[in-house]
């Protein structure tokens, strides 16, 4: 599924613009509130043409942005289940059903293999729309299988994070996915297969505190929220306001936890460069 369709599905049209844009082909920027057409957005790599705000996009948008053409989806046969019979204001199995219907996705992460500037890359990308991009057993398992595939085929791996963290409805099982993914990555590192961690808005909680911080290269989109604890929790704990720009990509770069920040329009060429530089001589 391409970005155009997905963007259309998720379009937010201001009511007053409905008449002028009957097909909902307007996008109102969350940040600068300016409107632009979907065509303009598409031409601008799904960023606001007025303020360069990188709108939150989905796994398949990134696949389209990165891969040369065709790509193959992997491990899409895994499905989450409500094995703890977890119920808060609504049962977990209902949350899962709703998320699947709403997003047409099977989980909060999708894995694909394809070529970026003619070099093979495995990409695992998250969807924030699917229960906040939260990490449960399936996310852990898809990442583990992606790592196995990277090991077997000696193909570099890229994980694109966009998540609120662990999936509470899987309790300790979701916590253990931190250990699982990190342990698997230690095997990938031992085999000297490169792993690129790309952090996008937002990346917090147990994902940041495991595979997202463990890239050979860690890089991010501009102005993404990245952290361990969420800003609200920190504010409630320390009982004072947070400094300007706290927990942004720029903040993490300054404090030494990112290698660089890349604008979405340069993403493909930058990843292509990394692949070329890391490539083992034939």
């Amino acid at each position, binding site marked *: 599924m391409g970005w155009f369709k997905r963007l259309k599905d998720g379009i937010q049209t201001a009511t007053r613009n409905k008449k002028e844009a009957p097909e909902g082909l307007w996008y109102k920027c969350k940040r600068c509130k300016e409107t632009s057409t979907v065509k303009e957005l598409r031409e601008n790599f799904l960023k606001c043409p007025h303020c360069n705000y990188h709108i939150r996009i989905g796994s398949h948008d990134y696949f389209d942005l990165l891969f040369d053409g065709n790509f193959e989806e992997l491990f*899409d*046969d*895994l*499905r989450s*289940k409500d*094995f*703890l019979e*977890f*119920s*808060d*204001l609504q049962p977990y199995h209902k949350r899962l059903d709703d998320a*699947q219907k709403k997003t047409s996705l*099977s989980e909060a992460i999708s894995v694909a293999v394809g070529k970026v500037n003619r070099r093979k890359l495995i990409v695992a990308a998250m969807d924030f729309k699917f229960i906040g991009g939260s990490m449960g*057993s*399936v996310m*852990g*398992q898809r990442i*583990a299988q992606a790592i196995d595939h990277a090991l077997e085929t000696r193909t570099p791996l890229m994980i694109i994070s966009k998540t609120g963290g*662990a*999936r*509470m409805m899987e*309790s*300790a*099982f979701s*916590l*253990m*996915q*931190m*250990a*699982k993914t*990190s*342990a*698997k*990555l*230690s095997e990938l*590192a*031992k085999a000297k297969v490169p792993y690129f961690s790309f952090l996008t808005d937002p990346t917090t*909680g*147990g994902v*940041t*505190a*495991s*595979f*997202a*911080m*463990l890239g050979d290269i860690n890089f991010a989109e501009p102005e993404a929220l990245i*952290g*361990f*604890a969420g800003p609200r*929790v*920190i504010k409630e*704990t*320390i009982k004072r306001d*947070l400094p300007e720009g*706290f*927990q942004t990509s720029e*903040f993490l770069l300054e*404090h*030494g*936890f990112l290698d660089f920040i890349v604008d979405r329009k340069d993403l493909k060429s930058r990843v292509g460069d990394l692949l070329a530089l890391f490539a083992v001589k034939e």
Partner: protein
Amino acid sequence: MVFLDFETPLEKLYEQREKLQQVSEEGDIDMSAAIKELENKIKNTRKEIYSNLTGWQKVQLSRHPERPYTLYYIHQMCRKFVELHGDRYFKDDKAIVGGIGNIDGQTVVILGHQKGVNTKMRQYRNFGMANPEGYRKALRLMKMAERFNFPVVCLIDTPGAYPGIEAEERGQAEAIARNLFEMAQLKVPIVCVVIGEGASGGAIGIGLGDKVSMMENTWYSVIAPESCSSILWRSWDYKEQAAEALKLTADHMFDFGIIDEIIKEPLGGAHSAPEEMAKILKRHIKKSINELLEMTPEERIEARINKYANIGVYDVVKEEEKVEETES
């Protein structure tokens, strides 16, 4: 003595006993029969209460102000112990302590979260909530253990890693992630025991090991029940429900295959007989280390990684089922 809310029947019996003792001390009336009867009643009531604890009650017990903490166990278990400080980069975190010790002839590196024993010390220990330098100190000690071939023991007891500005600046997430990554490949045995609270990334940051166990009245979860209540129920009032829903007790964790063993506590909880608890813990640690020393480092690392790789519950659908999903 501190009584928890569900221990009210016990508290009343203790009060009665105290009164009887006073009466018998003041006058000439012999109360010994009545006191003995009360003591039996106390024993039975305690047994009754403690055999039916809910998830939330175990959370309360794990936070009991008289519950023993890491340093108590270390000093009880080790004939010699030298505490080591600092991460060598930034500072010494007081919420994670560690050092080199000797348990019945076996040198170990032993570390864990540390809570304070009184109001002043609780502040000093930051309530057992570590900053990045705590995790980095732990890793430094573990790497030293690896160099000298000492087994590593990690005692877990934290309400979570500290959510603060400086913690984020210094990379709380990176520190925890790095520990998971390095602990997976550590060549020496790692024995982990949850001795109190096992909350979230702050717990697993020193919790990846060959053998992971929990004391009977402890909990392990992706989030503390109060925080879970506030996020999923949008109110702080559902902590009991959240504790049940999270299935966070040692019994659950054992049934799920997430931990290897449950360590029995003395009746009434670890705090009711701390010395006995320390003896039980020491036996467990010795046995676990001896078992793990039977394996080669390569075997241990492989088994360790496989253990975590197998944690997770999910369905696998067939091709034709995928088609049905998209049509429905």
